[in-house]
């Protein structure tokens, strides 16, 4: 009896330790970003907002933030739109090479990003598209597409095809069915897809590193360039900002799911 209690306690302790180890690095960066010291040190001797102020006062960091935001917003729209159409086709159509198509669509997750990035650089340099933000968004959409597809395919599984049939019997056109039945029912999945494709682009480094040039430096590229020189505390502030964006996106996704569950129980 005491043996099993001890074992249970040991397992609990191990899990608490592992969970702490998972979150600690992220917490440490956030705490270090509020340091008042002149160089990076943990725990900081004093607290201040000086590294945030330095970030906000530096036009190059601000330009990088704006570039990241623009590229991520464009990626999120493009990847979600293409991904939604493809996921719908996969859910309702019968493809003879289904497995091959799925493997192809998921391939950008598997192929090392360095290979993808160099190939895109090879193409973009010839087309004169290095440093063009919409083009970087198109390139990011390649790696965001598999993420969007996985989310939307499972979201569309919950949409009953009979609802679409019913709407068509009552005189709705195909486009009408899409707009009035499929879109509203798949909306929570669409929101998740948009959030995660935004994050994928906002956090992407390797492709941006090759395609951004000097003109369209994104936040991760700017972090990379400064990390190669020195580990300065401004990076901690920028990292804390990126962590904040991630947490916000995860929170929004959770809220959407909660709202849907609540409305599902209400209609029942």
């Amino acid at each position, binding site marked *: 009896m005491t043996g099993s209690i001890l*074992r249970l306690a040991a*397992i609990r302790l*191990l*899990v608490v330790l*592992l*969970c*702490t180890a*998972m979150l*600690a*690095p*992220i917490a*440490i*960066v956030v705490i270090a970003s509020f340091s008042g010291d002149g*160089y*990076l040190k*943990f725990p900081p001797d004093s607290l201040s907002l000086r590294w945030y102020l330095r970030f906000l006062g530096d036009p190059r960091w601000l330009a990088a933030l704006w570039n990241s935001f623009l590229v991520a917003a464009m990626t999120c729209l493009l990847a979600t739109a*293409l991904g939604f*159409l*493809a996921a719908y*086709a996969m859910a*309702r*159509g*019968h*493809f003879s090479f289904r497995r091959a*198509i799925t*493997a192809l*669509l998921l*391939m950008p997750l*598997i*192929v*090392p990003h*360095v*290979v993808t990035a*160099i*190939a*895109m650089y*090879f*193409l973009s340099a010839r087309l004169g598209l290095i440093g063009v933000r919409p083009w970087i968004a198109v*390139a990011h959409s*390649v790696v965001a*597409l598999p993420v969007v*597809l996985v989310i939307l395919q499972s979201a569309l599984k919950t949409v009953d*095809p009979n609802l679409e049939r019913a709407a068509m019997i009552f005189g709705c056109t*195909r486009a009408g*069915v899409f707009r009035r039945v499929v879109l509203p029912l798949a909306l929570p999945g669409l929101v998740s897809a948009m959030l995660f494709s935004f*994050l994928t682009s*906002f*956090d992407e*480094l*390797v492709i941006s590193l090759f395609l951004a040039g000097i003109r369209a430096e994104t936040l991760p590229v700017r*972090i*990379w360039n400064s*990390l190669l020189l020195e*580990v300065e505390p401004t*990076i*901690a502030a920028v*990292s804390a900002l*990126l*962590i904040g964006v*991630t947490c916000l996106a995860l929170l929004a996704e959770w809220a959407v799911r909660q709202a849907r569950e609540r409305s599902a129980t209400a209609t029942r």
Partner: protein
Amino acid sequence: MPLRHFAKWALIAPALALLLLLFITPIGWFIAESLAELGSASEVWLEAKAVLGSRAILGAILNTNGIALTVTLMVLAIGYPLSYALSRARGLAFSLVLICVVIPYFTSVIVRTYAWMVILGRNGLINQVLLGLGLAREPADLLYNRTGVIIGMTYVLLPYMVLTLYAAMKAVDPRLLQAAEGMGAGPLTVFAKVFLPLTLHGVTAGALIVFILALGFFITPALMGGPGDVMMAMLIEREIELSQNWPVAALMTIVLLAITLLLYAVYARFADRTEEGFAR
């Protein structure tokens, strides 16, 4: 509502076109044109033999496989108990463990790497604790060497393993464990004879996916490694960025792609089979 032939292809065409134009074609074109710089097929073959036989590149291939293997084993050792806890936890405990896995998972790789640089550096947290407790006379070298690379990559890849294993563990019917217990098996026997065999396909799937991703790693080893920890992806990047040596980069890309796709094919086969197994 089934889609007609034309409609389904029209809907999937934009996504396929994007991948064809920006993914498949550029990779093929870059490799073909870079190799064409070398001349005829026999000249390409000679250069390939010379490049792949060179010490730097053989070293990188060995490093890459060694690091990927170590990281996979570390991730498995840490991920298994964590996934087990996740699959058994309920309510608040479940949410807390999930948060601890998901927040790092969706945080930028460069931010996670930077976090470990802060922790492992000469003035970092670990060295301060070691010095403060008198366990070390001088700061330990934890960064810019193999130790740093392994720690950083293990942290970055851990969530992939946990989420894969969690799915496998969730599918285990708890009544099987109860039945084994009821028939007198101790906790260790239940684990070794029932739970472990039932989750083994998850272990294989998780290990394969982590190994595949580790093979192509670039950011973490580039920032946390030392001169002796050059991995294939880093070497490819350097050939382009520093020496503009496209043919060598293309040859190395072929090697990296071949290993990756081969393992992915094994993974896909394997994932299919376990799915069919469940359906039965």
